[in-house]
């Protein structure tokens, strides 16, 4: 059970950062997974008063506040257009509208869950995270770091000339995925982020001149998968090939 002794809706990032240096304190995102932990929190740090729930689109990038909900990602027309619908596809299977109105992009990326559709998607967007003290860091690097006590402020998605796709496999609707696969095709070739292996999503790059079948075979040979309640390592390896092939076909289609 989660218990909280004090609650503080902070008025500045500095206040959030200072409070967060104490080990017993916690930043509250959507509180979906946090609530299911057995944890005694000293002070719950609420960022919801800082206006970090918006998605800004400029000529060159998207600037997504850490408190933006997964539902906001799902409904944002600019993100939908830029990602060829992949952003919406990556989040729409996550439980239900009510949960996605609460769950935040910052909470998802900070937590770096292995099963995270959100982390999988943002990895192929070449996203960067802006940390209050740590500055701007590539998400691919942040995802591999141990969790620290900095404050994740926003996510920056640069606009590039690229095409995106998102695929996932679930045993039943609204369950967490057995495997996720976000993909991008640009002038450098293809990149596939595959998550729920069940470990955290990783990127597999493929050159532009390979066929879908060759890429599926290459990723199947390279990927490290494991077994869990939802599927065996062999099943996940097989699925990785299937999703890469489907993604490659979708990316190649006009």
């Amino acid at each position, binding site marked *: 059970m989660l218990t909280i002794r004090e609650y503080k809706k902070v008025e500045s990032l500095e206040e959030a950062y200072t409070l967060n240096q104490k080990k017993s304190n916690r930043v509250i995102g959507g509180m979906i997974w946090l609530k299911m932990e057995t944890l005694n929190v000293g002070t719950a740090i*609420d960022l919801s008063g800082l206006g970090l729930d918006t998605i800004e689109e400029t000529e060159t990038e998207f600037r997504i506040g850490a408190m933006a909900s997964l539902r906001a990602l799902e409904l944002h027309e600019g993100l939908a257009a830029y990602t060829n619908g992949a952003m919406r596809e990556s989040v729409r299977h996550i439980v*239900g*509208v009510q*949960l996605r*109105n609460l769950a935040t992009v910052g909470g998802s990326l900070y937590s770096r869950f292995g099963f995270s559709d959100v982390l999988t998607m943002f990895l192929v967007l070449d996203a960067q995270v802006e940390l209050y003290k740590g500055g701007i860091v590539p998400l691919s690097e942040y995802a591999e770091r141990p969790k620290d006590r900095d404050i994740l402020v926003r996510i920056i998605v640069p606009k590039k000339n690229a095409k995106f796709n998102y695929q996932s496999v679930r045993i039943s*609707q*609204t369950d967490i995925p057995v495997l996720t696969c976000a993909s991008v095709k640009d002038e450098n070739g293809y990149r596939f982020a595959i998550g729920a292996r069940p470990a955290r999503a990783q990127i597999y790059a493929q050159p532009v001149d390979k066929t879908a079948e060759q890429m599926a075979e290459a990723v199947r040979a390279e990927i490290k998968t494991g077994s869990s309640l939802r599927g065996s390592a062999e099943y996940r390896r097989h699925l990785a090939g299937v999703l890469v092939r489907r993604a490659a076909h979708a990316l190649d289609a006009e």
Partner: protein
Amino acid sequence: MLITMTLNGKKVADDVAADTLLIDFVRNHGCLSVKRGCETANCGLCTVFMDEKPVLSCSVLAARASGHTITTLEGLQGEAAEFGAFIADQGAEQCGFCNPGFMMNAIALFREKQDPTDEEIKEYLAGNLCRCSGYEGQLRGIRAYLDWKKQREEDAQ
């Protein structure tokens, strides 16, 4: 700590613990339609509107809801009676425990989309679990309600 919110149109102020959940707060203020089904943020039974958006009240701190507008089924009796009759006509539910959360999210759907397809209905309501039924009755009830509403609007023109 002292919090205040607008609950079903009325200003409510109360002293709560830092970890009081919104579900417990609204139930303590008479909104017993709000049910605790799973406690793992999956079933949708505790759905309320926070500033018009459907959320799971089991996963919101009452403190975070302070200053916001909260609506439960108790505050939507007109819409609930109108739509609920169509669900009852289909005999869609057996025990009825999931009904308030389902009604809330269906009303949110109707407000967001005037004329949803079956796929859009299923996607929007995927986070509302019912363990008695197979959802077919609910889907028929929703279709019948939407058809009736459309007919009523056409007749009015």
